[in-house]
C-alpha cells in the first residue's frame, strides 16, 4: 500500500452541515427555548432527526480508502461489506476543494472521477474523501501518476503554483457572461417591464397622493392577469440577480493553468476548488454563443470530460466551463495552445441548399401549421369566435417566426471531420460549435427516411465518451458525402 487504508478526516461528515445536521440543530434550539418536555412529548418525531447524522457518521466510520501501485481500493459497508477497486489509469479528473470549515483546519476534500461514471447508477464509483494538506497532495500525485513510478516522480517535481495562468477571469467577466447568456426574450420582457413600471412610478411621484391612495390606485390599474405577469417578471429579475451573485462567488478568481499533461482549473471564494483535467481524457470542447454574444463577438467555451461540470449542489448546476467569456477571434489561439492535439479550425461544410426543405420538417413547424389549421377549423366549421381574426393573426405571426427560425437553423448548420476532430455547428439564435476528438467517438448513427435517402440526406448522431447528459450530439440533414467523411475517420 502506498497510501492508507484510512477513513480520512472526520470533517467530511460536516461537509453538508445544514442538510445533515440542520434538523438536529433546530431540535437543540427548540429544547433550549421551550424546555425538554416538548421533545419528550414528541419523541417519535425526534428519532427522525437523528437519521441523517447517524447515516453520515456510519458511512464515514465504515469506509476505508487505500492506494497501491495500480489501483485505489475502497472498502465500505456496515452489514454488507463491499470492496471496490478502481484502476488509477481509469481516473479522469482529480478535484481538490475546501469550504470555509476545511480552510480553517487546512483540510482538503478530494474527489476523483473515473470513466465508468457516465450515468447515475455508476455514481457509486465516485471517490470522495477529506485529508490533511500534505496527504491530500500526496494522494493527488499518486492518482495523477497512474501507478507509474517515473511519472510519479515527475508529478512530485511539478509545482503547479509557479505556473502562470493561461486563462484568468474576474468577477466582471462572469457578470458579463450572465448578461450576455440571458435569453433575448427574457431581456426584452425585463427591460419593458422595468421601463413600463419605471414610467408609471415616475408619473406617480409627481402627483401628490397619500400611501393608501397609491396602493388603491395600483390595485385598480393592474388586472389579476397583469399582476401575475408582473410578479413573474419580478421573480425572474430576482432569480437572475441572485444567480449572477452566486456565479460570481462560485467562480471567483477563476484561472486555468496549462501543464504539459493537464489543465488545472482553480476558482472559488468561500469554497475553493481545484480541478486537474488530464488532457488525454478530454473528449472535446464546445464553443457557445448566445444571440447577444454573437452580436458583440463573444463566446464561452466548455469542455467535455467525465467528472468536471457534471455535479450539482441543490439547484446550482456546476458548468463545465473552460473559458467563461472571450472574443471569438481570440479563442482559437488559446485553445490551440492548451489543447494541441485537437484542431479548432472552423472550416465547416455548410448545409447544401437542397437540404433547406428538410429543415422545415420539424416539430415546431407542425405545431405552427397545426395551430393555424385548428383556428380555421374551429372558426369555419364549429363556432365563430369573437377574437377569431386576432387569434388567426397571432397564429400567422407564430408561423412566420417558425419559418425564420428554420432558416436560421439551416444557415447555422455545418460539419467537418478530419483525423483529429469531428466538429458540428448548430443552433438557431444561439450558436454552438462542438469539437470532438475522433478517438473518443463511440458510435455513429444515421437516420433517414426513404424520401430523404433518395435525395442523399440524413441526420447523424455521434456518441462519445463524456458525461451522459452531453454524450450525444446531432447534425441535421447532412449529405451522404459528409456522413462518409465522418465514417472514414472513425477509429475502429
Amino acid at each position, binding site marked *: 500500500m502506498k497510501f492508507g487504508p484510512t477513513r480520512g478526516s472526520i470533517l467530511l461528515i460536516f461537509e453538508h452541515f445544514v442538510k445533515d445536521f440542520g434538523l438536529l440543530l433546530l431540535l437543540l434550539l427548540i429544547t433550549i427555548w421551550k424546555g425538554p418536555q416538548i421533545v419528550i412529548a414528541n419523541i417519535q418525531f425526534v428519532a427522525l432527526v437523528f437519521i441523517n447524522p447517524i447515516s453520515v457518521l456510519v458511512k464515514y466510520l465504515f469506509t476505508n480508502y487505500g492506494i497501491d501501485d495500480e489501483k485505489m481500493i475502497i472498502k465500505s459497508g456496515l452489514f454488507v461489506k463491499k470492496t471496490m477497486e478502481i484502476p488509477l489509469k481509469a481516473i479522469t479528473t482529480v478535484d481538490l476543494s475546501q469550504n470555509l470549515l476545511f480552510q480553517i483546519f487546512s483540510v482538503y476534500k478530494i474527489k476523483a472521477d473515473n*470513466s*465508468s461514471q*457516465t450515468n447515475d447508477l455508476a455514481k457509486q464509483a465516485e471517490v470522495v474523501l477529506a485529508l490533511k494538506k500534505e496527504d491530500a497532495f500526496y494522494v493527488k500525485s499518486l492518482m495523477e501518476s497512474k501507478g507509474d513510478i517515473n511519472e510519479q516522480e515527475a508529478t512530485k517535481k511539478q509545482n503547479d503554483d509557479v505556473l502562470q495562468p493561461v486563462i484568468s477571469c474576474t468577477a466582471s467577466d462572469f457578470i458579463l457572461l450572465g448578461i450576455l447568456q440571458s435569453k433575448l426574450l427574457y431581456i426584452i420582457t425585463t427591460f419593458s417591464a422595468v421601463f413600463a413600471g419605471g414610467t408609471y412610478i415616475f408619473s406617480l411621484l409627481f402627483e401628490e397622493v397619500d400611501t393608501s391612495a397609491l396602493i388603491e390606485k395600483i390595485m385598480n390599474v393592474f388586472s389579476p392577469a397583469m399582476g401575475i405577469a408582473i410578479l413573474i417578471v419580478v421573480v425572474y429579475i430576482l432569480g437572475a440577480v441572485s444567480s449572477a451573485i452566486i456565479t460570481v462567488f462560485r467562480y471567483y478568481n477563476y484561472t486555468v493553468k496549462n501543464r504539459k499533461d493537464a489543465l488545472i482549473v482553480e476558482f472559488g471564494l468561500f469554497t475553493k476548488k481545484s480541478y486537474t483535467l488530464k488532457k488525454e481524457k478530454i473528449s472535446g470542447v464546445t464553443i457557445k454563443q448566445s444571440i447577444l454574444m454573437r452580436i458583440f463577438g463573444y463566446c464561452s467555451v466548455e469542455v467535455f470530460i467525465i467528472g468536471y461540470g457534471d455535479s450539482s449542489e441543490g439547484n446550482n448546476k456546476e458548468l463545465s466551463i473552460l473559458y467563461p467569456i472571450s472574443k471569438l477571434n481570440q479563442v482559437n489561439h488559446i485553445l490551440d495552445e492548451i489543447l494541441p492535439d485537437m484542431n479548432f479550425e472552423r472550416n465547416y461544410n455548410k448545409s447544401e441548399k437542397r437540404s433547406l426543405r428538410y429543415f422545415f420538417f420539424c416539430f415546431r413547424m407542425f405545431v405552427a401549421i397545426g395551430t393555424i389549421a385548428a383556428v380555421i377549423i374551429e372558426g369555419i366549421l*364549429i*363556432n365563430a369566435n369573437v377574437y377569431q381574426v386576432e387569434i388567426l393573426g397571432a397564429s400567422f405571426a407564430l408561423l412566420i417566426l417558425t419559418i425564420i427560425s428554420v432558416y436560421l437553423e439551416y444557415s447555422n448548420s455545418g460539419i467537418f471531420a478530419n483525423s483529429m476532430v469531428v466538429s458540428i455547428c448548430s443552433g438557431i439564435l444561439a450558436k454552438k460549435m462542438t469539437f470532438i476528438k475522433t478517438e473518443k*467517438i*463511440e*458510435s*455513429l*448513427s*444515421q*437516420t*433517414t*427516411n*426513404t424520401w430523404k*435517402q433518395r435525395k442523399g440526406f440524413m441526420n447523424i448522431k455521434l*456518441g*462519445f*465518451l*463524456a458525461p*451522459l447528459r452531453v*454524450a*450525444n450530439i446531432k447534425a441535421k440533414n447532412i449529405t451522404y458525402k459528409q456522413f462518409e467523411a465522418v*465514417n472514414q475517420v*472513425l*477509429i*475502429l
Partner: protein
Amino acid sequence: MNYEKLDAKAILSWRVRRTISFLFLIVTVGVGLLILTNIELDSKYKKYIYIVIVLLLLYKLIGIIIYPIIEYKQWRYAISKDKVEIRHGIFFITTTVIPIIRVQHITISKGPIYRKMGLAAVKIFLASGSFEIEGLSENNANIISESLKSSVMERLNMEYERGKA
C-alpha cells in the same frame, strides 16, 4: 458487409408485447371515458376527446398488426471483426456503427415473452449509451455475445501489447 436478419418469431413477440400494452391502454381509456360521461363538459369538447381516443387506438392497432412486419423487414445487423452495424426503424431508418473497441460490456436479456418463444436480446453498452439487437434466437444471441466478447478481448490485448511496446 453481410447483414443478418432477426429470428422470424420476433414479429409474434412484438405483437404479444404490444397487445398487452394495448389492453392496459383500453382499461385506462375505459376508466377515462367512465369519468368523462359523469362530468359536465361541453359536448363539442367531448367530441374532440372521442376523436383523439379513436385515433390513438387506431394507431396502436396498426402498431400491432402492420408495423411488426415492416419493422422485421427493416431490421438488420452485421458484426465484423472491428465493428457492429445495426439497422432498424419503420418510416425512419437508423443505421448505427459501433467500433468494437469501444464496447464496455454486453448483456443478454430474456423477458417472459422472449423466454416462452426461445428468443433473447443482446444489449451492447458503451460509456455514452447502449444499443440493442432484439428478437434473436437464444443460440444466436449466445454466439453473438461470445464473438463480441472475444473480439473485445482480442482488441484489448492488442492495445495492451502495443502499449507495452
